[in-house]
């Protein structure tokens, strides 16, 4: 019997065929460990995870519910209504990934894929300047204890490490995500890929919904591969739509139910009274929790109602 006729998913079928197993008889003599070449034990994975640093969001409460910050090797989806601060968070993360290793950051670069045109360079400069000031302040605190080295970063240097792609159609979006594999192997210091937003070009008048689902799942797979292969964080932004559930209209993230399975973590940004809150909607390792945050002239910071100091890990 042909492998092509087996009731398994297309990607699994593809993998089997690629590995050369085209008939059932060729599979029958294998054991699971042979097939699962490249698997790791859970213990090894735990060790790896503990060594990984996380990318801070500059808001202590938000970092707390995220378990320290945005994690590498995972795809995090962040969604919210217009104006809640998704692009702000994106720019903040693109700057924070560059925090030097000595100060507790990753010292990496960022790829920012802009599909809506909401990346404003002036705002990125503002956030970069505030970040440099924070780093200098933190460094002064550290220096008394440990003699850390100088912070030589300038705001322009921070801007220079953000690679910006401007995408104008869904084809370009598919193309850039496929091209990123080659790009990142040439720029190995990229540690975060931000897609703002993944929904825009897939929402408007897609006649063939089946095509849309296929393209989106292909894209999700590629992003996940990127995260795992190059050990970086992938953050994608999603928009919001209204759904009729439980007898009334409610807000939900766009792109449908099948997309909601594609990401590792899902965070929803929403208004609660006068404050902005973030809610962990779905995560394999983080518990559901909400945390307030605010958007200030310096970027994302703690909510003004909690007077906590800004922690840079």
């Amino acid at each position, binding site marked *: 019997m042909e492998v092509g006729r087996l009731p398994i998913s297309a990607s699994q079928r*593809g993998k089997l065929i690629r590995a050369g197993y085209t008939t059932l008889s060729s599979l029958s003599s294998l054991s699971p460990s042979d097939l699962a070449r490249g698997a790791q034990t859970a213990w090894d994975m735990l060790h790896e995870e503990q060594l990984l640093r996380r990318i801070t969001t500059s808001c202590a409460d938000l970092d707390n519910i995220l378990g320290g910050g945005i994690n590498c090797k995972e795809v995090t989806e962040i969604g919210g209504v217009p104006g809640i601060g998704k692009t702000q968070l994106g720019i903040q993360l693109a700057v924070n990934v560059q925090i030097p290793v000595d100060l507790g950051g990753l010292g990496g670069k960022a790829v920012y894929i802009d599909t809506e*045109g909401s990346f404003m360079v002036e705002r990125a400069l503002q956030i970069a300047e505030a970040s440099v000031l924070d780093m200098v302040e933190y460094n002064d605190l550290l220096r008394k204890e440990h003699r850390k080295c100088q912070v030589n970063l300038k705001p322009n240097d921070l*801007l220079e490490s*953000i690679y910006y792609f401007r995408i104008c159609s869904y084809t370009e979006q598919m*193309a850039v995500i496929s091209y990123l594999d080659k790009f990142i192997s040439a720029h190995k210091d990229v540690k975060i890929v931000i897609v703002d937003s993944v929904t825009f070009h897939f929402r408007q008048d897609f006649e063939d919904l089946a095509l849309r689902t296929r393209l989106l799942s292909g894209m999700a797979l590629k992003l996940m591969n990127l995260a795992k292969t190059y050990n970086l964080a992938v953050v994608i932004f999603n928009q919001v*739509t209204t759904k009729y559930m439980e007898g009334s209209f409610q807000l939900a993230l766009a792109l449908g139910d099948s997309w909601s399975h594609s990401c590792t973590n899902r965070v929803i940004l929403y208004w609660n009274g006068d404050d902005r809150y973030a809610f962990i909607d779905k995560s394999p390792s983080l518990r559901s929790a909400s945390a307030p945050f605010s958007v200030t002239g310096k970027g994302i910071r703690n909510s003004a109602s909690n007077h906590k100091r800004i922690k840079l890990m």
Partner: protein
Amino acid sequence: MADKLIKEMGLPKSMANVFAARNITTAQEALALTDFELMLLLDVGMAEVSSALARISEIACPPYQTALALMEQRIQKEGHGGHLPTGLKGLDEALCGGIPFGVLTELVGPAGIGKTQFCMKLSLLASLPTAYGGLNGRVIYIDVESKFSSRRMIEIGVQSFPDIFNMKGMAQEMAGRILVLRPTSLSKFTESLQQIQVALRQQQVKLVVIDSMTAVISGIIFCLGITDKEPQDNTYLVGISLAEFSRIPIVVTNQVRSQTRDEGCQYSFQVRSTEDPVGYDSHLVAALGINWAHSVTIRLVLEAKSGQRFIKLAKSPMSPPLAFPFNITAAGISLLDDYGRELKGAEINKIHSHEKAKEGLPATFLTVRQKPPPTSSYVQRRQTLRPHSGETRHYSDDILWRAHDLRPVPPRSCLHPD
């Protein structure tokens, strides 16, 4: 980028032929299929398909820039660092220079609040020479509801920039740079967008104003009988892609409607509040729905509260949520306070108006189907927005009314307020 031809991509000859044989000619068609589907369709091995796709993706992908290079390019090459200064000091500072290029800026507010006035002022500003803070270019004004008044625009020009406009022939030249299109149907509107694309390629146009987008979309609803509250339509996408492609500001006006019970405002995980979320005063929201709200980059809400008009930065990636009180004067719009008041929370998105909009009916239907008679109810609306008695009345309200009536203005000196 999506329409790049595969035969020009430098693929190995055999692969290029196979693609052509299966009728896949552009990057868009190739990237719409997964690797596995392509493998089955083209009947080639996985390795060849992967390398072909990698090549196609690399070519179809737009070039990247570092954010620093982006900033330098915008500051050096574009007028005023990539912004159109509005002449309102507080607003320009909040927007880091003015209306940004390359993205959609939306003006939303109830009828009569001053959206068209603002648009006319912006059109004038874009046509001015660079030395006076303008973009020295042509303006395309798509006037769907026939609200544009050239008489009023000249008046704004004369009052705001008397030294230019009193020069011989300047008024004619400035006004001559503003092209007003009045499409009467959807097909004409699409035609006008195409005209714009042509003009843009000749690099003369520096601003596009669409007044109002709501009328366009509700005109579509009316003509095609679509009952969907939030129509998915491609025409406004064309507007967006115009902006990206050509780096000019695009200003769009939007109207308001009352919020119906059917609209979601909470997520499933939020605790449902027992009190009525609709609120005490007339709860207005911007028309065109949440999809549209995601598509615009800057949203300026104009509203009237307690007799004072405000312009609020409801959505802007680079500004804090500020509200500036403003008035409509002979010179267009002027801010009463350049510092503005920072609003907390979701208050910045709310739209207030003195008149109670009809429950459930989108206000757009009123404008498309039955234009309000330009007599009693219109004057009434003007009067509700006038400051209370005892303060100076702005004579400009009279001029506005007359401009809309398009009756000849009686010979009266424009410089004496009542």
